[in-house]
Structures are given as C-alpha cells and as structure tokens.
C-alpha cells in the first residue's frame, strides 16, 4: 500500500531524512519510532504530499506522491502533530467543511460526519466551538477529520501526545479498531505505544532507518537470554542470601545470579539464563526442594525500550551512551 524507496529530504543545511526505504502492506498498523528530531514528521509530510522529496520515490496506493499528488491526497487521511483545527468554527461545521474539501459528495457529508463523531466519541461536543474544547477533544476532532473521507491510508503523527492516560487508552483502541479497513502509519517516540498498537515497527534515528520488523521478531532477535526476578523467603528462621545464591547458581541453564535486595526474611534475585534456555521451571523446583518459600517468580520483560536503545546505540558504535543522551536532549530542545 505504501512503498518508499531511497527517500531523502534535505533542508537548507540539514538532512532530515536520509535514504529510507520501506514497505507497508494493506491493512497493517505500522509504528514509526524514533527520538524527537529523527525525521518521522518529515517522512510523513512527504507521504501526505505536503513536502516533495529531495530524492527517492514514495508511492501511496499505487500513486506517486510527486507526480499524482491529487490521487494520493484523495486516498490519505492525515493527522499532523498539532491537529489542524480552526478555533472559531464549531466541530460539526468544521467536519462538514473538511468533508467537502476532501471531495465527499454534499449529500453524503452529514451522514459521514455523524458516523465519525460517534466513532471518535465527539458527538456531545458537535455544536461547540473548537477553540473551547480540551486538548483531548481537539485531538479526537483531529482524528475524526483524518478518517472522515474513509481513506485507504491513515497517517497519524503522534496521535496520543498530550492526552491523559484514559484518553490514550481510548485513542489506542480507536486506532486498533480502524486497522483492517485502513492501512495506518503512526509515529511516536513513546515505545510502549508501538508495543500496544502496532504490528510492525520502523525505527529511524537521525534520518536513517535503523530497523524494521514485527514487534515479536525484534524482541526475539535481540533477546539472547531470559531474565527472571525471584523473591524467596524462609518459612522459619533466617535466610542466608549467600546460601540461596549458591543454590540458584547450581540450577542448570543459569548463567548469572544477582542479589537485588534483602529484607529480614526475604531475598530478591535476578536470575539470567544462558543463551536460548528457559529456566523458570528449574528455578522454581530448586527453591521448593530447598524448603524455601517462593514468593515471586516473574520474567523480566525485554521491552522495546531496550531494543531501541541497543539499536540506536549500535548505530553509532564507539560513542558513549551519555553522549547519545546529550544529543537527544539537544534534539528535544530544538523541537
């Protein structure tokens, strides 16, 4: 549905996007991930025909963004980072205008407007002035605007930024419910966002593509070993952490045991397995046979956070992580 090849976008002095290629299949939700200033918004603006690429091609629904931009624009719904709203218009009036602008027949407009209002849960504010709405409502009106003409492709630039936790969950659900009919690209710098709503991830950093894969594949690829958090207590008497530790180290498949915390009768450890081994069952058995209580046994998740840091760090081998963070801070300050 979307095919990007060798896309490059240069501004006066800076290269915002550098030779990016990727493909998105019909009906997929793809997360576009990267720190602030990585080039996410620029890529999206090229896809929506707002900016022409400096080099390379982008193809949406079979049409080139440069040569057949009108056809692309008909098939794309776009929610920019700041929702494009006219503060002095009423919600209904605004959506009617957008519907006409997107080329809906005037007879269909009221029906479509009602539909998207229901879908985005903004029916109750339809007669209100946009300027008086809260941030959450504005974001939803922005989303309603993007899906109004039922486009094949939806491009959402940080759709959940500035929302409260409840609204974030609602928005995520809404986006997930849109998948299937629509191909969705959403950008974010919040990693859990991608874990929650996307099937595939495209990670970019400093304008370059770092990785693209399914969420599970990425996790598997980077996960060498398994980590388990274990909390052990002695039913009677005191617990000797050193003894427990020794016992855990003897379990087959365990490569490393780290003592995390000791509270009078409890000990917490983090146990790491050897490459490709599952150790949870063995650890549990060992603890129980030793006569201790197993209070907790929990796999320590290998989050996208770690993947992201690993990927972006390996991208610039040799530079220290601190420098990296410093750069990100600067990039944030710029934005």
């Amino acid at each position, binding site marked *: 549905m979307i095919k990007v090849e060798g896309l490059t976008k240069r501004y006066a002095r800076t290269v915002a996007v550098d030779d990016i290629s990727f493909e998105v299949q019909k009906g997929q939700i793809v997360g576009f991930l990267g720190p602030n200033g990585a080039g996410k918004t620029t890529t999206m*603006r090229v896809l*929506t*025909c*707002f*900016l*022409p690429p400096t080099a390379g091609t982008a193809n949406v629904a079979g049409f080139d963004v440069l040569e057949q931009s*009108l*056809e692309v*624009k*008909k098939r*794309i719904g*776009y929610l*920019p*980072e*700041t*929702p*494009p*709203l*006219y*503060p*002095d*218009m009423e919600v209904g*009036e605004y959506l009617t*205008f*957008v519907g*006409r*602008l*997107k*080329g809906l027949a005037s007879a269909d407009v009221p029906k479509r407007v009602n539909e998207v209002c229901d879908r985005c849960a903004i029916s109750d504010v339809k007669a209100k002035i946009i300027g008086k709405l809260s941030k959450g409502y504005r974001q939803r009106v922005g989303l309603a*605007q993007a899906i109004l003409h039922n486009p094949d492709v939806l491009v959402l630039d940080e759709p959940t930024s500035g929302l409260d936790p409840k609204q974030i969950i609602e928005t995520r659900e809404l986006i997930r419910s849109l998948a299937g009919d629509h191909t969705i690209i959403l950008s974010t710098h919040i990693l859990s966002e991608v874990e929650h709503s996307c099937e595939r991830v495209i990670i970019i950093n400093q304008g370059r593509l770092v990785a693209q894969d399914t969420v599970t594949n990425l996790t598997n690829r980077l996960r060498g070993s398994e980590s388990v958090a274990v909390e052990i207590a002695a039913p009677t008497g005191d617990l000797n952490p050193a003894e427990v530790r020794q016992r855990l180290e003897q379990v087959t498949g365990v490569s490393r045991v780290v003592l995390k915390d000791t509270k009078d009768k409890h000990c917490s450890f983090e146990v790491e397995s050897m490459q490709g081994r599952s150790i949870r069952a063995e650890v549990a058995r060992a603890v129980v046979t030793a006569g201790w209580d197993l209070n907790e046994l929990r796999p320590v998740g290998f989050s996208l956070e770690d993947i992201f840091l690993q990927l972006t760090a390996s991208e610039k081998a040799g530079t220290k992580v601190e420098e990296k963070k410093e750069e990100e801070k600067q990039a944030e300050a710029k934005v």
Partner: protein
Amino acid sequence: MRNVLVIFKKELKSYFASPIAYLLLAIFAVIFGFFFYSATRFFVLQGMQMQMMGRGMPMDVNEYVIRPLLTNASVIGLFLIPMITMRLYAEEKRSGTIELLMTSPVRDLEIVLGKWLSALVLYASILGISGINLAILFAFGRPDWKPILVGYLGLILQGGCLLAIGIFISTMTKNQIIAGGATFAVCLMLWVLDWVSAYDQSAWAKVVSYLSVVTHFEPFSKGVIDTKDVIFYLSMIFFGLFLTTRSVESLRWRA
C-alpha cells in the same frame, strides 16, 4: 470550481463568525458617513450661495457629490484591504491548518481563488454600506445612476487588485501583523505613485504614475469605462493571484 466554492464559503463564514467583518463594516460606515455628510453639506451650502447671488446655475449631484465620494471610498478601501487579507494565509501558517489544506485533494490555485473571492465579497459588502448613503441622494434628487454603477465597478476592480497583492504578501509570513503592515505599505505606495506626475513629465514618471492604482480609478469615478484601465486592473489581479499561487507552491519546497 466546486473546491473554490468550498473554500470560498468557509472563508466568508469565518469573516462573519469573527468580529473582523463587523469591525470593517463599522469603520467604513462611520468614515464614509462622515464624508457623505461633509460632501452634501458643502453641496447644499454652495447651492444656497449660488441662489443668493442670483445665478441659478444647474448643479450636478454626480459631479459635486458622488464623484468625490467614490474617490474617497477608494481611499478608505486602501486602509481596509490589509485588514481583510492579512489573515488569509498567515493565520493558516501559524495555526498549522495549512497542512490540512495542502494535503487535501485540492489544487493550490483553487484555494487561492476561493480565498480571494471571499475577500472580494467582503470588500464588496463593505462598499455596499455606502449604498445606504447614496439612496438618500436618490430620495431627494435625481442623480444619474449609470456613472454610479461604473464607479462601483471601478472600486471593485481596484479592490480586487489590491486584495490579490494582499493575499500574496500574506503567504510570505506567519505573522499577521507583518502581513498587514507590508500590505498597507504596498497599497499606500501604489496610491501615491501618481504624485510624481505632478512635478515630472519624463517618460520614467509616466511609467511610475501609470502603476498607481488611483490613476486608473479616475475615469471610473467620472463614469467612464476605459478598456485601458480595465485591462490594467485585470492584469494586476491576474499577476497578484499568479504570484500567490507560486508562493504557496514554493512553501512546499522551502518549508
């Protein structure tokens, strides 16, 4: 064409949904009302003086009242036009709604035309207020209506060309104040350019004074439609809208 109408309706609505339109209508009504009052008082006074001197010369309302009034209206227009156009693009650029317009299946030219037409209609309705004053003349006298219509045609053409320039300037900045200020400066320049003809008769001065929008309005105020002036205004409108469209296009490349 359909898209032009969509933009046109939306822009016109937002003029009248905000205080802008009413403010401009009020400003024009007050200032034009004052001019009208002065012009008619002067006319009446002159008429009385003539009678006292015993010379019952016929006095022409068109010549002594309406013509100067129309010229004054064109000058008031110069001041109002920057306030009409300054927001058209600058506001969209500041609030980010330009992204909505430019990612919708609409041509840049259609957006420009829609916005220009809405500005023109607002300008025309502002001028329409002066109709109330002129109606009073018709109630008490018998002015010739044809030169008045020609005068209004001239006002609309002149307004259209300044509005086109104003929109062009509005595309170049995010700041409405800058857009308004620059438009006002350009409008004023195009007005006073014809002053050079007062002290200079060289070819250079003729070219400069030809560029003045006021020079071309004079025949209209007399009730004369000169193709030369119509073509001047139409080509200025065309040129202004052309520049606007190119400027909007270049936003993509420069952004």
